[in-house]
C-alpha cells in the first residue's frame, strides 16, 4: 500500500501542517514530516477535511442503470470529496428486502470508491401500506440503520408511528420525505407568485411543515429518532427549532440547491430546475442558511438525483423531479457558508456520519484514525460543464455557473480515490 505525505495542508482550517497516510490510517500529523517511501502531495493553500458523508444519494441501481450506477455514482461522490454515501431505497426493485440492500451494498464494495451504505424502505414497495422487513435489513450484511420511503411520504400517521417505534429495537432512524400528499396532488413547483404566473400547480410550504409538525410530535410521543429529509421552508425551520428546544430526537438536512436557487428558476420552464421538494423563495433560503449556521439544521445532504436526458428534455410537467448534487455540493457549501471549515466539516461529515452510524467516517484527520479524508483547493474556481461530470446523467442545475473550490484529492481508508482532481479508477 502506497504511503502519501501531504505537506503544508490546513486541517479543517487550522495552521498548515503535514499529514502522513500509511496503511489505511493517518500515521502522523505534524510539521516537517519525512517519509522517503511516500508519494508527496504539495498541500500548500489546500484544506483537508474528514471525508464528506452524504445522507441522501440516489444511485439508481438496480433499475435505472441508464441514469446512474453504483459505480458511476460512487465516482461522482469521490470527485465531490465524499468517502461515504447513503443510497436511497427507491430503486427498481425497491430496496425493501435484505436481498436488495445487500446487492447495493455489495456493488458499493466492488466499486470501492466510497462506502455505500444502503437505506432501506420503510414500507413494502414504498407504497405506504405496510412495513417492510426492517429488522431483516438491519440484520443483513448491509447493516441498515436508516429507513426512508424518500420520494414518497409515509403519510399514514399510524404507520409512521409504528415505524418510529419498531426501529428502536436496533437503534434505527426513520428519514421522512415530508410531503402531505393530498396537499400536493399534481404539484409542479413552489406555490407562490411564480407558480401563479407560470400556471403550474403549486406545492405549498404547509404540505411540508404539517408533516414535520406531526412527525416531531410522534417521535416525541414514542421517544424515537426522526430525521427530516431535504427541509425546504422557513416554516419547517421554526417547527424544528421548537421541537429541538423541547428535546425531541430529531435531525434535519438541507440540500445545496435549496440553499442557493429560488423558484424563479422555473421561469425558463427548463425541468433541470424541477425538484421535489421544489425550489422555494429567497426568504426560505435565508431561513435555511441561518438554521444551518445555528444548528437547527444538522446536515447538508445532496439528494443527488440523476435522471436520463429524455426524462428532463421535455415539458416541465412530464419531467422527473431531481438534480445532480454530489460533484458540486462542497462548492455550494463554500459559496453559501464561506471558508467556515469547522462548520462545513460538522454539517457535511461529522454529523451525517454520526446520524448514519458510520464509524470511521466523519473523524478529523489525526494520528491513528482511518484515512478517510478529502483535500480541497478553496482558491480554485471552476465553471460547471455538465458534460465533464462523472455521473451518467447531466441534470445539474449549475451548468455554466462558476463556483468556488475544487476537490484535489480524496482518500478512502488510505487509498486515493481522487488525485489531482481526477478519479483514480
Amino acid at each position, binding site marked *: 500500500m502506497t504511503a502519501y505525505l501531504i505537506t503544508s495542508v490546513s486541517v479543517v482550517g487550522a495552521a498548515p501542517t503535514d499529514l502522513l497516510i500509511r496503511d489505511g490510517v493517518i500515521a502522523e500529523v505534524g510539521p516537517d514530516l519525512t517519509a522517503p517511501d511516500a508519494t508527496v502531495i504539495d498541500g500548500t493553500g489546500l484544506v483537508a477535511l474528514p471525508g464528506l458523508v452524504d445522507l441522501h444519494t440516489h444511485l439508481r441501481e438496480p433499475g435505472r442503470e441508464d441514469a446512474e450506477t453504483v459505480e458511476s455514482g460512487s465516482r461522482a461522490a469521490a470527485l465531490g470529496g465524499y468517502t461515504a454515501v447513503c443510497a436511497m431505497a427507491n430503486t427498481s426493485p425497491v430496496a425493501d428486502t435484505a436481498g436488495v440492500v445487500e446487492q447495493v451494498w455489495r456493488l458499493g464494495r466492488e466499486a470501492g470508491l466510497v462506502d455505500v451504505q444502503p437505506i432501506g424502505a420503510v414500507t413494502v414497495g414504498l407504497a405506504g401500506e405496510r412495513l417492510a422487513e426492517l429488522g431483516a435489513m438491519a440484520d443483513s450484511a448491509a447493516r441498515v440503520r436508516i429507513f426512508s420511503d424518500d420520494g414518497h411520504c409515509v403519510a399514514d400517521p399510524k404507520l409512521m408511528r409504528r415505524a418510529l417505534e419498531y426501529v428502536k429495537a436496533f437503534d434505527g432512524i426513520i428519514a421522512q420525505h415530508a410531503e402531505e400528499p393530498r396537499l400536493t396532488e399534481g404539484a*409542479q413547483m413552489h*406555490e407562490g407568485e411564480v*407558480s*401563479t*404566473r407560470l400556471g*403550474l400547480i403549486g406545492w405549498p410550504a404547509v404540505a411540508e411543515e404539517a408533516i414535520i409538525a406531526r412527525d416531531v410530535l410522534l417521535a416525541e410521543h414514542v421517544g424515537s429518532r426522526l430525521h427530516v429529509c431535504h427541509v425546504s421552508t422557513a416554516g419547517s425551520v421554526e417547527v424544528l427549532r421548537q421541537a429541538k428546544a423541547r428535546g425531541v430526537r430529531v435531525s434535519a438536512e438541507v440540500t445545496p440547491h435549496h440553499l442557493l436557487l429560488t423558484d424563479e428558476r422555473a421561469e425558463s*420552464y427548463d425541468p433541470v430546475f424541477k425538484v421535489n421538494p421544489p425550489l422555494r423563495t429567497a426568504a426560505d433560503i435565508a431561513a435555511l442558511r441561518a438554521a444551518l449556521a445555528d444548528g437547527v439544521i444538522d446536515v447538508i445532504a445532496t439528494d443527488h438525483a440523476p435522471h436520463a436526458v429524455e426524462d428532463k428534455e421535455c*415539458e416541465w410537467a412530464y419531467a422527473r423531479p431531481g438534480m445532480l448534487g454530489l460533484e458540486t455540493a462542497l462548492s455550494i457549501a463554500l459559496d453559501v457558508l464561506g471558508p467556515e471549515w469547522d462548520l462545513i466539516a460538522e454539517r457535511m461529515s461529522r454529523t451525517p456520519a454520526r446520524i448514519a452510524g458510520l464509524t470511521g467516517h466523519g473523524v478529523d484527520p489525526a494520528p491513528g484514525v482511518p484515512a478517510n479524508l478529502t483535500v480541497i483547493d478553496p482558491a480554485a474556481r471552476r465553471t460547471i460543464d455538465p458534460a465533464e461530470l462523472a455521473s451518467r446523467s447531466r441534470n445539474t442545475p449549475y451548468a455554466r455557473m462558476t463556483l468556488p473550490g475544487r476537490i484535489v484529492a480524496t482518500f478512502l481508508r488510505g487509498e486515493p480515490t481522487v488525485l489531482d482532481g481526477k478519479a483514480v479508477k
Partner: protein
Amino acid sequence: MIKHLLSGGDLDADTATEILDTAAEMATVAGREIKKLPALRGRTVVNLFYEDSTRTRISFEAAAKRLSADVINFSAKGSSVTKGESLKDTALTLQAMGADAVVIRHPASGAPHRLANWVDGSVVNAGDGTHEHPTQALLDAYTMRARLGRLAGLSVAVVGDVLHSRVARSNVLLLSTLGAKVTLVGPPTLIPVDIAGALAPGTDVSYDLDSVLPNVDVVMMLRVQRERMNDSYFPSAREYARRYGLDGPRMRRLPEHAIVMHPGPMNRGMEITPEVADSPRSTIVEQVTNGVSVRMAVLYLLLGGNNR
C-alpha cells in the same frame, strides 16, 4: 417585432396596439367577396394541437389561409404523438419540414417555451395548460376596443375559475399593459395566490360579484368545469351559479354601456344563463369573428409580412 408570441407579457403597449391596428385592417378582408391576401404565400404554418380545440384550431387555420400560407394541421390524435414521440422530436421533425411558424396548443404549461428552444421558426402559444392564451387576450382586447372605443381606463371584471384559466392570465397581463383596470372575481378557492404580484400590480381581487358589477365596463365570464366541485373548489354547480353565475338580474346591475364577454365554450346555466349569452350586450359571437382577424395580424407580423 417579437419573434414568438408565448405570453401576453411579451407585448409592450406599442406592439400590442400595432397588432390590434393590423387586425382592424385584416377585418376588412373578411368583408370582401374574396377573403384572401397574398402576404404569406409560400410560408408554412403548422398547427400543432395536443388538445382538442376545434374552435381555436380552425380560427388559426382560417387566419393562415386568408394570408395564403400553406397550413399543416398536426394533431396529437392519429399522429406519432400517441406513439410516444417527445415534443423535442416532433419539433425537430417540423423544423426539418421548414415550418415558418408553429401554432401550439398543449395541456402542459410552458410547452410553447420549450418548443421555442427547438425550432427556428416563430412559435405562437395557442393555449398551454393553465398558463396563457395570448391570442385570446388580443381578440378580447380588440373586441373591447371595437365596442367601447378605447382600452385605457376601462374597468374589466374577469369572473370565475381564474386559477385554472389561461385566458385570465393573458388578459390580466395584456389589459394592464394597455391601461385597463382588471378585477378578478371568484370564490377564494379559484383565485391563485399572490396574483397581483405575479402578473400585474394594481390587479384587484373580489369574492363578491354583485358589488363589482355596477362599476365595470366589461364583464368577462370564464368557463367553469362542473368537475371542479369534485375537488372541493366549490360545493355544487348550483351554488356556484347562484354566487358567481351571470344571470338576467345580475346583468341589469351593469352600467348601460357595459358588455358581456366569454371566451367559449360556454356552460349555459353554470357561469352564464342563455338570457345573458344571447343578449345584445353579449359579444360572444363577435369574439369568434375577431379571433380570425387578430390571428391574421399576429401571423402576419411575426412572419415579417410587413417587411416584404
